[in-house]
Each structure stands twice: as structure tokens, then as C-alpha cells.
């Protein structure tokens, strides 16, 4: 199956209505190094047309014995202008699949299924949005930031990584936000520490009404739990190992809590990857929060502004 698609640049399979994913042979238009990461721009008009922030593409990779696709969050789409019909994703090359991808060059053709998963829901109210990203998880938040700004909402950002090199595109983060705070574990850029060390202060300074987060799972747990303590609604883009990415294998589940308190394993590829942070049953997951969570938590918060509730923000989702 792979060969037929790899040899052709224009093949698209799927249904001709707007909200279903397709499988497409996508030519690599550009590929560039950004710090520790690679950015790939694909010519993928059918995917660009349908994609929303928080969704991902599932990319076939080659290599001895590799079988399964690799999921990557969509970091940007262009629907107009000279780059119309392109879809970007950012990746960190560390294993066989991502290593193979790093060896592709412009004009190579990738076999891509997408867009997949549920996007970040956009608030129905005018609230100030804080986007918290770790590592390559910052990339899809840029796509989200554009959409939120188009809705006329204030966007602030916290961008964290282990080192300066692993901070993704600081310039873009500054360009598209009202404010951005950088943190690195080693203090080589921005503040030394973790995103959760600054979250409370940033949220207070920016009058944050809702938090969106994407990054490594232990970071997401820390962010979601802190948001719950601060009574801030959060939307979290999770990452779990996926065999199919399309909802048929049940490998990618995330424990979530229903309104009656019972825990349900939800497929992150089709019911997620974005979940309401307060609904994730982290204590039933395998992710532990690493390092100190909140510093200065004992300082009293003065008169917090009234927070909108989940129902007010997203309806009965």
C-alpha cells in the first residue's frame, strides 16, 4: 500500500464532505531546522481545508520493520496566499520513525492521514487565554493562538523547555501574544524552573480566564492539577501511544471522570486528544508530576476575578 502512494504526489482518498479525515500523498514543500526541532511543510490542500488547532496528522514512516504511523500535532495551516493548502508540523527526532522523517527532503512525498482528533474548543465568552506549552508542544499552540486572536481574544503564553535550545520559536511566541514568559529547567533562557512555577503569577497578571496546554504528559498533569486548584478551566492536548489514530484499536486511552464520578477510558485519538483538564483522572494514569509544583503557594491570592465555569465556556461538552 505504501509504494503506490509514495510514488504519486496528488492522490487523495476519502469522502467528499468537509468534516471527515482523508489519506493523502503530500509533497514536502519545505523542511527546516528550528532549534532542536524540525519543521515540515506539506502540500496538503484537503487536510488544510479541514484542520483545526489541536488536531493531528498520522504519518506513515519507513524503516526496517516499522508498521505503524506516527502522530504529530498540526502546528499551522495556510488556506490563503502563496502557501495556500499547506500543513505544517514540528517534530523532535529521537527514534526510528522521527529519525526517518528527519532524513526526508523537499519534494519527497509523505503518506498522511488527517486531520484527526477533536480540536481545542474555543470559548464562547470573551476571556483572556493563557497557552502553556512545553517542548514541541508549543508548536500547535501557535495555530490555536491565531484562531483565538481572530476571535478577538487576548492570548498570553508560557513557553517551557529543558534548555534554551529546546525552546521552540521564541520570536513567533513574542509576535503573536500579549505577553510571553519563558522557563527553562537549567535557567539558560527566561526564568529558571518549570512552567508551573510561574503559572499562578502569570494568570493573575494577565487576568487569565482559561488555560490551554500542550507538552509532555507529566507537565500536562502538573498544569491541569494546578489549574484545578486555581479554579481555572483548562483544555489539555494529551499524548498517548496510538496504534491506529482513527478510533478502532483502543490502545490510546486516557482515564477520564464522568459527571457521576466514575472513571472511563476514552480514546485520545477520537474522543481527544484534547480533554477538559478537570475531567482527566490523573490518579488513574501512569504519569507522575515531576519536581516542585507551585512555588509561593502559601502567599494569599487577593480578590480573584470571577471565573467562568466550564458550562459557561463550552456549553454541555
Amino acid at each position, binding site marked *: 500500500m505504501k509504494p503506490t502512494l509514495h510514488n504519486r504526489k496528488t492522490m487523495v482518498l476519502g469522502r467528499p464532505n468537509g468534516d471527515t479525515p482523508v489519506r493523502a500523498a503530500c509533497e514536502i514543500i519545505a523542511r527546516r531546522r528550528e532549534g532542536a526541532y524540525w519543521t515540515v511543510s506539506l502540500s496538503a490542500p484537503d487536510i488544510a481545508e479541514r484542520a483545526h488547532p489541536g488536531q493531528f496528522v498520522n504519518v506513515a514512516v519507513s524503516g526496517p520493520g516499522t508498521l505503524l504511523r506516527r502522530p504529530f500535532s498540526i502546528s499551522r495551516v495556510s488556506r490563503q496566499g502563496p502557501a495556500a493548502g499547506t500543513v505544517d508540523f514540528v517534530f523532535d527526532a529521537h527514534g526510528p520513525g522521527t529519525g526517518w522523517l528527519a532524513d526526508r527532503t523537499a519534494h519527497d512525498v509523505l503518506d498522511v492521514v488527517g486531520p484527526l482528533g477533536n480540536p481545542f474548543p474555543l470559548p464562547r465568552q470573551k476571556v483572556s487565554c493563557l497557552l502553556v506549552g512545553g517542548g514541541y508542544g508549543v508548536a500547535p499552540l501557535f495555530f490555536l493562538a491565531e484562531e483565538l486572536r481572530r476571535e478577538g481574544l487576548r492570548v498570553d503564553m508560557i513557553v517551557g523547555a529543558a534548555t534554551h535550545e529546546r525552546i521552540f520559536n521564541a520570536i513567533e511566541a513574542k509576535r503573536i501574544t500579549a505577553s510571553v514568559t519563558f522557563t527553562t529547567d537549567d535557567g539558560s533562557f527566561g526564568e529558571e524552573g518549570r512552567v508551573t512555577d510561574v503559572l499562578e503569577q502569570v494568570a493573575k497578571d494577565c487576568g487569565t480566564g482559561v488555560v490551554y496546554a500542550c507538552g509532555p504528559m507529566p507537565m500536562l498533569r502538573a498544569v491541569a492539577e494546578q489549574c484545578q486548584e486555581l479554579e481555572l478551566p483548562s483544555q489539555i492536548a494529551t499524548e498517548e501511544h496510538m496504534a491506529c489514530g482513527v478510533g*478502532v484499536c483502543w490502545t490510546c486511552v486516557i482515564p477520564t471522570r464522568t459527571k457521576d464520578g466514575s472513571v472511563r477510558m476514552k480514546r485520545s485519538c477520537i474522543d481527544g486528544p484534547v480533554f477538559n483538564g478537570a475531567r482527566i483522572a490523573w490518579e488513574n494514569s501512569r504519569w507522575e508530576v515531576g519536581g516542585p509544583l507551585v512555588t509561593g503557594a502559601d502567599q494569599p491570592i487577593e480578590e480573584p476575578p470571577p471565573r467562568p465555569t466550564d458550562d459557561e465556556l463550552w456549553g454541555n461538552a
Partner: protein
Amino acid sequence: MTDVRRVEAPPPPVSEEDAADLSAVDLRIDLGGVTLANPITTASGCFASGSEIDRFFDISVLGALVVKSITLEPREGLPTPRMAETPSGMLNAIGLQNPGVDRWIAKDLAWLQGKDVPVIVSIAGKSVDDFRQVAAKLRGRAGIVGVEVNLSCPNVEHRGLVFACAADPAGEVIRAVRRELPDLPIFGKLTPDVTDITAIARAVVDAGATGLSLINTTLGMAIDPETGRPRLANTYGGLSGPAIRPIAIRAVHQVHTALPDVPLIGMGGIRTVEDVVEIVRAGATAVAIGTATFADPFVTQQLVTDLRRWMAVRGFSRMDELRGKVFPRV
């Protein structure tokens, strides 16, 4: 919104292709008394209950749809990680997550009944009575053309031993299901993790199964060399994909040789049209596609097209001309 272009993969540049008469090929099969439009079906647990893949193409092109195993009570399954990729295969340990038979009938079967596709329901249980009760709830439901009994479940009444590992408990389950569903084709699904698969096959058929489905995954394990931890939360998991295809071909061939009149649903690592023909030659009547759908959601649809073309080019017109056709090496 531009319409999606539907471009068929170009036929390979073989001159006979153009001359081949696709309409001369009749892909229909008789599977235990039920006529299916073609032999391509789905492996249980690899196609959910159809609606997810129906987003990509109309699933009614398939010969039949075998749904994910359904149990009496809802199950949330095992913790993650539930899968690990291995060379040309993958390990999974899902733990039969499913909504339970009542919710499955109300939601998934109702959806499937609106689709023009024959449904084979895979059922699972922890005890003989579990299987019996699920079977009873399926009696008389429209759209269901058969039941596949997933015998690769641990039997809680028998020290957790898998039903399909011993002839007696496997036969007992089949007899219980047969009593509840006297008129429906029943397929017993077997594990390859036994010394003599033909002995289990015979016991299951003697107990009243119409046919057999083989093979289920074979048990495996993977360990992260750095951390020393198993890659699956469950430690062990079922191996599937091309890595197990030779085991599947062997199992189907052994069982078909021993029981030539029993219809078999063959599966295990089938991905290309050549793989389909291989397992049909080994003795399969229908062919189920599992892990290959994970890599390509369109693969089952593609295989129906590819199989017709493969046969036309070579002058085959019916599946019978291929089934069980393995010739001695000279």
C-alpha cells in the same frame, strides 16, 4: 470546500491488465450457509463497530464486518501503555474494553443495521454462562449473520486458563452458545498458542461450531533495555501483524487439512492481495484484516478491488478455484 479527488491507484503497467475482464470474476463466497459478496472481512478488535472507518469509505463494500468482542458487562480494560510496536508487528493488551452487550445493541448494532453490511458479532466472557447470556441477547436481531466466539479469554472458573487452550472448556462454551442460537453460523476463534491446534479445532466443531476463525494473536513480551521495564502495562500482550503471518498460514493449513469441509475465517498479518491469496490457498474461505487497518484505514476496501484484479489477470473466476489449492513441491 473543494471536493476530495478520488484517484484510484494507477494499475501497474502490465498489458494483460487492460485485457482482463474484471466482471468475469465472482468474489462471492459461502460462509457456513451465508452468502457474502466477497471474502474480505475485519478482524475483531481492529475495526471497532464500523462507524470510525465509515468516515473514510462506505463500509458496505466489505464481505462482512466482525465487530470488537462484546461482553455481558461493560469493561474499561487495562491501564496504558496498551501497545508496543515490534519488528513487523505490534503487541497489544487492551483487556476487552467494550460498552457491554446492552449498550452495544442499542447504539452500535442500531447504527450497523442502517448499513448494508453483514455483521458477525464477536462475543467474549469469563465463564461459560457469560458467553451464553451474551448469545441469548443476540437472538433474532436483524443484520447479524453470524457469531464469532472469542475463545482466547481467561476462564475464571478454571484457574484463568484460556478457553481455547483446552478442548473441553472450549467445547462447553460452544455448546452453550449453540443452544441459545440454534440457527446462526457460529465460528470458534482459536489461539495459535497450543501444541495441536487441530485437536482444539475438532472439539469446537464437534461441539456445534459451524466454522473456525484463526488465528488470534500469539502471546509476546517486550522489555525496554534502558529502564528494564516491560513495554506494556500488562507485561504480556498479543502479537499481531506481518510478524505472525507464517504462523497463521500454518495454522489455517493444518486445520483445513484435518477438517476440509469446515469453513475458516483466516487472519494474521494479512495486508496485501498476495497475502489474501496465500491464506485462501492455505484453506481460508473468508479473510479478516486486523492490524493492517491501523497502518491504512482504506486497506480493506483496497483489497476487495485488488483481489478482483489479481484474479482477473490470472484467469481465475471464483474463490473456490483458489481455496485450499496448495500443490506438492516437485
